C-alpha cells in the first residue's frame, strides 16, 4: 500500500487544477452575466462615463510619461543598431511599428492592470466585504448591472484610447530623440514611417489588440474583486492576483492575436 503522504502532491495538483477550472468557469459566467446586463450601463451612460474617468483619465499621466520614455529609448536603441547598416532614416519605421503593433497595446495593458485593474479589484472587493453589494441586492438592484457592467465597459472604452495615446506619444518621444537630438532628417523620419506603416495591418490590428486586452484586463480585475473573500487578506491577495493574471493573460493573448494577424 502506498503511504498517504506519497499521494499528497497529486492531491494538491488535483485540487489546484479543479480550483483553476472552477475559477475559469465562474469568471466566464460573470462575463456572460455582465454582457447580458449591459443594457443598464448603456441606458444610464453617466454610470459608465464616471468609471471611464476613474479608469481612463486617472491613468493618463502614467501612460503618457511611460510612452514618452519608451519612445525615446526605442529611438536611441534603434539608431544605435540601424546606423551600423547605414539606414538610420528607418528609425521612424522602427519606432512606429514597434509601438503601434506591440508596445502600445501591450505596455498600456500592463500599466492599466497595475493602475486601474488593482483599483477596480480593491474597490469591488471592499464593496463586497462591507456588504455594499449585498445591500444593493436587497434593494432589488443587480450589482452586476449597476457596479460590474459600467466598470467593464469603461475599461473596454478606456484601453484603446490609452493605447492610441501611448503609441502617438511614444512616436513623438522617438521623434524628439531621432530628429533634434541625433539629427536624422525630419522628412525622412516621417516619410519612411508613412511608407511602411499600414493603416489596416498595423494600426487597426493594434487597436483590435488593445480592445481585446481591455476586455481581458477589466474582466479579470472585476472577477477577482467580485470573487475575493470578504476579508482584508482576501482583498489584498485578489489585488495581487489581478496584476499577475492580467499580465500573463495580456502576454499570452498578444502571442495568439499576433499569430492570427500575421497569418491572415
Amino acid at each position, binding site marked *: 500500500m502506498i503511504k498517504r503522504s506519497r499521494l499528497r502532491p497529486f492531491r494538491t495538483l488535483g485540487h489546484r487544477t479543479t480550483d483553476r477550472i472552477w475559477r475559469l468557469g465562474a469568471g466566464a459566467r460573470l462575463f456572460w452575466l455582465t454582457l447580458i446586463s449591459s443594457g443598464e450601463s448603456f441606458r444610464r451612460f453617466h454610470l459608465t462615463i464616471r468609471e*471611464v474617468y476613474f479608469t481612463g*483619465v486617472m491613468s493618463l499621466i502614467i501612460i503618457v510619461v511611460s510612452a514618452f520614455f519608451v519612445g525615446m529609448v526605442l529611438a536611441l536603441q534603434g539608431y544605435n543598431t540601424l546606423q551600423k547598416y547605414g539606414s538610420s532614416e528607418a528609425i521612424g519605421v522602427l519606432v512606429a511599428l514597434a509601438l*503601434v503593433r506591440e508596445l502600445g497595446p501591450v505596455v498600456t495593458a500592463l500599466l492599466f492592470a497595475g493602475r486601474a485593474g488593482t483599483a477596480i479589484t480593491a474597490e469591488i472587493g471592499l464593496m463586497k466585504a462591507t456588504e455594499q453589494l449585498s445591500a444593493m441586492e436587497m434593494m432589488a438592484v443587480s450589482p452586476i448591472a449597476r457596479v460590474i457592467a459600467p466598470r467593464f465597459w469603461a475599461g473596454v472604452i478606456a484601453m484603446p484610447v490609452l493605447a492610441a*495615446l501611448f503609441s502617438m506619444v511614444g512616436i513623438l518621444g522617438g521623434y524628439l530623440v531621432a530628429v533634434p537630438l541625433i539629427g536624422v532628417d525630419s522628412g525622412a523620419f516621417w516619410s519612411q*514611417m*508613412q511608407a*511602411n506603416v499600414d*493603416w489596416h495591418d498595423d*494600426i487597426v490590428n493594434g*487597436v483590435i489588440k488593445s480592445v481585446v486586452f481591455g476586455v481581458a484586463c477589466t474582466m479579470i480585475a472585476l472577477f477577482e474583486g467580485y470573487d475575493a473573500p470578504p476579508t482584508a487578506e482576501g482583498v489584498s491577495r485578489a489585488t495581487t492576483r489581478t496584476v499577475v493574471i492580467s499580465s500573463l493573460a495580456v502576454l499570452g493573448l498578444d502571442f495568439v492575436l499576433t499569430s492570427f494577424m500575421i497569418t491572415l
Partner: protein
Amino acid sequence: MERTTIDLWVGIFVALGVAALLGLAMKVGNLTTSNIGITYTVTANFENIGGLKPRAPVKSAGVVVGRVGDIKFDTETFEAVVSLNVDKRYNFPKDTFANIYTAGLLGEQYIGLEAGGDEAMLKNGDKITQTQDAVVLEKMISQFLYNKASESTNDAPAATKSDSASSTKAADDALTASPLDAISKPVTP
C-alpha cells in the same frame, strides 16, 4: 466630484484618444497616401511574379496609382493572374506595359505601368497583354555565375588578356560589395 467635471474630463480624454488615432492614421500610417478612392480593375498575366504580394503598390512614373488586388494561378496557361485596382482618376492606354520591379536590391516588389501610345484606354475588366516578369535574384545569380564560369574556362590559359581581366575584376568588385561573396568563391579562379 461633480458630474459635469467628470463629463468634461472624459470628453477631453476621448477627444485625445481620437486625436491620437487620427494622428496615427494620417501622420504615421499611410492612410492618406493609400487612400485610393474609386478604382477599376484590370488584370495582367505574368509567368513569374517573384515575391509580389496583394496590396503591393501599382506605380506609374513613381506615383502610386493603385494597388494589387488578388493574385491567382491560372491552371491552363500556368501563369499568375494579377488583378490591379487602379484609381479611376488615372487612365492608361490599351497597350500599357506592366512590369514587376523591386524597390531597391532586396526591397518589396511593386508593379510599374508604362503607358503606351494607343488611343483606346483600359477599362474595367480589361487585360494588360504586355508584361514583364519579376527579376528573380536566384535566377540572375545562377545565370551570372554560369556565364562567368564559362568565361573563366575559356580564358583560363590566357588570364592576362586585358579585356577578360577587366571584366572579371569588374565582376569581382560587384560581388565583394554584396553578401553573395561566399557563393561566388568556389568558381573564382
